[in-house]
C-alpha cells in the first residue's frame, strides 16, 4: 500500500502520526480562497511545484495536483508490494476521484480562451486523466477505469478490484483514490453549511461539520494463488464488501441509516462473518450532524447494544472525499497489523440520540476483523471488511 495525506508523505509517516496522535488539520496555505481564515483543512504541505519536482515532471507537464498525489501514492504501493514489472501478470488499475482535475480547471477556467499556454490543462479536467497518468507512471496497459461516487468512491474502487480478482478477470489490481483540495469543493460544502470552522469532532453532541482534506492512497490486490506462487508478504485480506443506496435524498442520509445498514449487512455476508466477529470499526464519521446520526443508527441496527470499539480518523486527515475509503483502508490495515485502535480525536460529549461512545484513546488490542464505512452524496453507502493476514491461514 501507498499513501500521501495531511499526516504523512509515506506509509511509515502516516503510521507514526497516528501512533503519536498528531493530527494534520491546519489553515490552508497552497490554495487561494477567501475562506482561508475561516476554514480548517487537512492539507498536504507541499506545493504543486515541489510535487512536480519530486516527480521529475517536465516544465510543460499538464499534471493536476490530483494526478500528482495519485502517482506518488500508487508508486509507493507498487514498490512496497515488491513489484518490479507489470508483465506477465494481467494488471489493472481502478482509481477514484470526486472532481478530477478541478484544482487546475478552477485556476485557468476563464484564462483558457485568451492564453494558449495554459490550454494543455483543459483535458486534464477529465476524471479519467489522473487514472491514465497513474497507469502510465506505473507501466500498466490493459484494464484501467475510474469510479466517482462522491465520498464513497475509493471504497467502491477497492470493491471493484476485489470483484476483478475473484472472477479471475485480472491477476493483480491496484485500487484506491486521489483528491486534491479545490475551491470548488470548499465552496460546495460551505454552501451546504457543513464545513466546520474548528477541528472536526465526529460523533460529538456539538459537532459543527467537517474539515476537508486532500490525500491519495492505493492498495495492491492479488489473489490467493499469486500469493502462494510468489511467496509474498500479505498485509491483510479484503474479506467482505457491500454497497447499497439509501435512495433517500441527493445529499442527505436517511435518519434511520437504511443504506448504511444494508451495506454493512452485505459486507458481513460476503465475509461470512457475524457482527460479533468485528473487533474495530473505522466509521465514516464526517462530523456533520446528518452523517453521524444516520451512521450511528445504522451501527445500532447491525450491532444492537454490542457496538464494537469504533472511531473516525477524519480528525487526523480531514475528509478526503473520493480518497477517504482508501485512506481509511490503509488505517484499518494498520490496526490489524499493529493491534491498535485509533482514537476519535476531539470527542467531548456524547450525542443525546443514542449511547454510542467512540474510542478516545489509543488502545492496544488483538484485532482480527476491521469494518470500514464510506458514504457519499447520491445515497451511496459502502462497507469494506479487512481481516488480519494471519487469520485466513
Amino acid at each position, binding site marked *: 500500500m501507498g499513501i500521501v495525506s495531511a499526516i504523512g508523505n509515506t506509509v511509515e509517516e502516516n503510521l507514526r502520526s497516528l501512533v503519536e496522535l498528531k493530527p494534520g488539520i491546519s489553515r490552508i496555505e497552497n490554495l487561494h480562497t477567501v475562506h482561508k481564515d475561516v476554514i480548517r483543512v487537512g492539507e498536504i504541505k507541499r506545493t504543486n511545484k515541489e510535487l512536480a519536482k519530486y516527480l521529475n515532471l517536465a516544465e510543460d507537464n499538464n499534471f493536476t495536483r490530483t494526478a500528482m498525489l495519485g502517482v506518488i501514492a500508487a508508486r509507493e504501493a507498487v514498490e512496497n508490494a515488491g513489484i518490479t514489472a507489470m508483465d506477465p501478470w494481467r494488471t489493472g488499475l481502478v482509481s477514484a476521484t470526486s472532481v478530477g482535475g478541478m484544482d487546475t480547471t478552477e485556476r485557468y477556467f476563464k484564462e483558457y480562451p485568451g492564453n494558449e499556454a495554459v490550454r494543455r490543462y483543459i483535458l486534464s479536467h*477529465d476524471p*479519467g486523466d489522473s487514472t491514465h497518468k497513474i497507469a502510465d507512471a506505473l507501466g500498466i496497459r490493459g*484494464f484501467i477505469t475510474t469510479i466517482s461516487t462522491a465520498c464513497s468512491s475509493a471504497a467502491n474502487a477497492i470493491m471493484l478490484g476485489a470483484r476483478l480478482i475473484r472472477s479471475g478477470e485480472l491477476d493483480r489490481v491496484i485500487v484506491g483514490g486521489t483528491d486534491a483540495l479545490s475551491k470548488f469543493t470548499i465552496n460546495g460544502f460551505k454552501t451546504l453549511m457543513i464545513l466546520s470552522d474548528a477541528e472536526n469532532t465526529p460523533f460529538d453532541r456539538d459537532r459543527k461539520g467537517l474539515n476537508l482534506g486532500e490525500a491519495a492512497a492505493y492498495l495492491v490486490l492479488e489473489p490467493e494463488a499469486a500469493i502462494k506462487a510468489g511467496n509474498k508478504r500479505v498485509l491483510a485480506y479484503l474479506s467482505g464488501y457491500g454497497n447499497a*443506496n439509501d435512495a*433517500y435524498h441527493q445529499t442527505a442520509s436517511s435518519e434511520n441509516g437504511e443504506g448504511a445498514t444494508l451495506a454493512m449487512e452485505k459486507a458481513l455476508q460476503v465475509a461470512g462473518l457475524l457482527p460479533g466477529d468485528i473487533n474495530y470499526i473505522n466509521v465514516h464519521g464526517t462530523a456533520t450532524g446528518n452523517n453521524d446520526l444516520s451512521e450511528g443508527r445504522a451501527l445500532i441496527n447491525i450491532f444492537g447494544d454490542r457496538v464494537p470499539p469504533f472511531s473516525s480518523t477524519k480528525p487526523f486527515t480531514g475528509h478526503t472525499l473520493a480518497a477517504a475509503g482508501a485512506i481509511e483502508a490503509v488505517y484499518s490495515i494498520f490496526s490489524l497489523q499493529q493491534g491498535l485502535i485509533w482514537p476519535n480525536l476531539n470527542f467531548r460529549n456524547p450525542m443525546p440520540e443514542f449511547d454510542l461512545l467512540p474510542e478516545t484513546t489509543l488502545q492496544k488490542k488483538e484485532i482480527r476483523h476491521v469494518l470500514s464505512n464510506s458514504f457519499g*452524496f447520491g*445515497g*451511496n453507502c459502502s462497507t469494506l471488511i479487512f481481516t488480519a493476514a494471519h487469520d485466513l491461514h
Partner: protein
Amino acid sequence: MIYINGRGCVSAQKTFDGSFPDEVIAPEGYILPVVPPPYKDYIAPAMIRRMGSGVKNGVVASALALQEAGSPDLDAIITGTGVGCIKDSEAFLTAILENHEEFLTPTAFIQSTHNTVGAQIALGLGCKAYNFSYVNSAVSFESALVDARLQLLSEEARTILVGGVDEKADYTYHLFGLAGLIKTGEGTPGASYSEGAAFFVLSTDKQEESYGMLKDVAVMNCLEPEAVAPALEAFLRRTGTALADIDAVVIGKNDDPQFQEYYSVLSGGFSPEVPVIHYKHLSGEYNTASAFGFWLAAGILKSGYVPEAVLLSGQPGLSPGGAASNAATLGKIVSHEEASHRAANSETAQSGAAIRGAAIRGAAIRHILLYNQYRGIDHSFILLSGC
C-alpha cells in the same frame, strides 16, 4: 448467459420512440442537438426545470429500458459518464469565480457530482441496490458493462440496469473546441459532438423479447494501431469465437481526421462482405456515444437487418431468394426541426418525406463485434450474440 431485455436511448436521433433508424435526422453543424423526448411523460414538471439534461435524458432512457423489460426488480444500477453533470459543474464554478466565492447557493454543487444520474434514477425508483458510477472517458459505459457482467456471471445479481450518459455545456464545449476535441470548422481537427443517454436491462433471465446476449466486454487503456489485431484475437479467443463467426462489426469511427487508422486496421481484418457499421455521424461523439452503438447493435441483432444509414461497407449475406431491395424498409431523412416538432407533438413518424435509405435484410446476424476508441486511448471490444 446475460440477456439484453430492454433498451432505451435519447440522442441526436429519434431513438426514444423507435423512429430511428427508419427515420434519420441529417446532422447540422458540429454540435448536434438532442431530439427531446416528451420529458413530462416521465418526470414531474417542477423537476424538469431543475434537472440537468444528463439527468433528464438518463431518467427517460432508463425508464424506456425498464418498461421494455417489464419493470423487473433491480439488483444494481451501474452508470457510465465521461464528463458527468458538467453543466452544473460549470455553473457552480462560474458562480465561484464571478462572485469571488460569495453569495453561492448549493443547488448546482449538489447536482454536479458525477453520480447524480445514477442516484436520481435510484431515487426515482426507490431502488436501494448497488449503485456505481464509472467516469473513465470513452470506456465509462464499458466499465459499467464489465462490472455488470461480473455480477451477473457470479450470480451475485440477476437483473441490472446499466447505461451511459453524457451532457453538453456551452463553455466546456467551447473549451473542447479550443483543445481540438470538437470540430470548429471544415477541415479542422476534432469531431462533431453531441450528448445523449442509453440504458439497458441486462439479466440472467431470458425473455421472449430479449434482444440478444452480452457475451463479453474488454477495456484497454492504450493500444498502438498495430496492436489492435492481436488484441482482438485475444478477446475473441477468450470468448471462444472465431473471426469468421463475426457477422457484423460496429465501429466508433467519428469525423475527426485523426486516429482513424485504428478502425481501418480493424475492419481490414474482416472479409469485405462483412458489414461494417458506424453511427457517430448520426449520434455525434461524446464519451458514452458507444452506448448508442450498443443500442444500435442490440436492435440489429433482434431485427436482423442493417439499416443503410449506418452501413459503412460490406453487405450482409443475403437470405436465400431475398434480394436486398425486396426486403427494404422505408427510410427517410428529416431535419432536426421537423423531428423535434413531431416529438413535441408525440406523433408517430411514419408518413411522408423522401425515401433515402434502403435497409438491407441479411441472413441471420448471429454475432456482432463492437470496437471503440477515443483519440488513441480507452479502447474497448464488446461481443453480442443472438439469443
